C-alpha cells in the first residue's frame, strides 16, 4: 500500500465528464465524497468503481472528491488515474497497471 504525495485534480465540470480532486489523509481509508447528476441510478456503482481503481493501484490514505456530470465509467476511471499520477509526479508510469 502506498500513499499519494500531494493534492491533485483532473477532469472538468462539463456535461458527460467528471471533476476529480484527491488528497492524502491521515486515516487509513478511502474517503469518497461524490456529487453526481446521476446519483440515484449510478451513485453506488460510481463509488464501487472509484474504490476498485484505487485498490488496483495499491493506494490508501486518500480522500476523493468527485463532481460527476454523468460521465461514463471509463471516463471516471481515466480521470481518477490521471489525478493519482499527477499526485505522485509519476515519471515511470506502469501502463500495464492502468
Amino acid at each position: 500500500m502506498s500513499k499519494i504525495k500531494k493534492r491533485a485534480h483532473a477532469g472538468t465540470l462539463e456535461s458527460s465528464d467528471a471533476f476529480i480532486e484527491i488528497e492524502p489523509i491521515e486515516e487509513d481509508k478511502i474517503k469518497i465524497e461524490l456529487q453526481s447528476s446521476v446519483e440515484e441510478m449510478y451513485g453506488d456503482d460510481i463509488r464501487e468503481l472509484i474504490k476498485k481503481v484505487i485498490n488496483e493501484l495499491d493506494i490508501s490514505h486518500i480522500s476523493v472528491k468527485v463532481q460527476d456530470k454523468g460521465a461514463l465509467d471509463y471516463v471516471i476511471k481515466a480521470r481518477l488515474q490521471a489525478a493519482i499520477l499527477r499526485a505522485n509526479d509519476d515519471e515511470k508510469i506502469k501502463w500495464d497497471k492502468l
Partner: protein
Amino acid sequence: MDSSISFSEFDCLNNRRVKRVEKFLNDIGLDFPSSIENFVIAKDGDELIACGGLDGKVLKGIAVAPHRRGEGLILSIMTRLINIAYSKGIKDLFIFSTPNNTDLFEDCGFKLIENCDNEIILMENSNNLENYKKILLSKRKDGNTIGSIVMNANPFTLGHQYLVEQAAERSDWLHLFVVKEDLSEFKFKDRIDLIKKGVSHISNVTVHEGSDYIISNATFPTYFIKDKGKINELHAKLDLRIFRDHLAPALGITHRFVGTEPYCVVTNNYNKNMKKVLEEPNGASNPIEMVEIQRVEKDGKAISASRVREFLKVKNFNELEKIVPSSTLEFLKNI
C-alpha cells in the same frame, strides 16, 4: 456545445480585454468587481457570452449573457477558473453570490456557508469551516459568561491591553481571535506574538489564530481597503453572521467586546452593524450580547494602533512608551 465557442484566459494587465469584460458585465446590469487578477471569457465568434474572474481565493464576476444561459457555459468557465487557482497553488476557494445561484455553484462542488437575509451568500469548495469548528469545539471552556474579542492589533497597544483586561474581568472565560490576514503593516506572526506577551498576565483568556472566517480577505475584503466608508455593509454583515451562526456556538460564546471607535470610519461602521447582527433574533442561532468598552485616553487622545504607527515613522520612542506595553516597545525598537 456549439463548436464556434472559444475560451480564453488573460490577466488584469490586458487592459483592452479587461475593458470588454467590464462593458459586458455593465450591459447585463452587474458591477465590475475590483481587484480581479485573472479572467476567463467565452466568445461565440467575436461576441463575448460569458466571463469569470479570480481574486486571490475568491471567484468573482461570474456571468453568462442572458440569451446564452442554460447551455452549461458556467461549468466551463468554472473549470477554467478552478484550474487557474490550483495552478497558482490556491486550493481553498470562495464565492460571493446571490441566493438564487446556490444550486448552480453547488453543481460546481461548492458548499453554502451562510445565507445572509436572502441578500448575499458565501460558499466554499472545501470542508475548512467544519474542520475549523471542530478545532474550536476542542477549546471550549465552561462558564456562564463566555466573552470574545476579535482584533487585528496592528500593533498591540495599551488600548488593546485595557480592552482585554476589562473583557476578561467581566467573563468567566475570554476567547481572543487575531485577524490572520497578512495585509497589515505588521505581520500576523508578530501581531499574535505581541498579543500573547501583552495578555500573559491574564489567566482566563485563550488567544486563537484567526481564519478565513473572521475578517479575512476572502470573506470580508473591504475591511482592508482603507478608503473611508468604502466598507461593504453586506460583507460586514456576512462576516458577523458567520461568527454568530458558526464560530460562537462552537465555543459557547455569549458576549462580544469591542472598544469604542473614535477615528476609523471602517471600524466604526462595522461596530454599528455588529450590535444589530449579533443581538437581533435571526432564527438560526442564539443572540450574542455586544459590549462596548470606552477606549483609554492618553493626553486627551484615544490610544490607537494608527497613532503608534505614526510615532514609529518618526522614531518617537518617548511617545510610544506611553501608549504601548513594554513587550511591544521592545519589539518596535528592534525593527
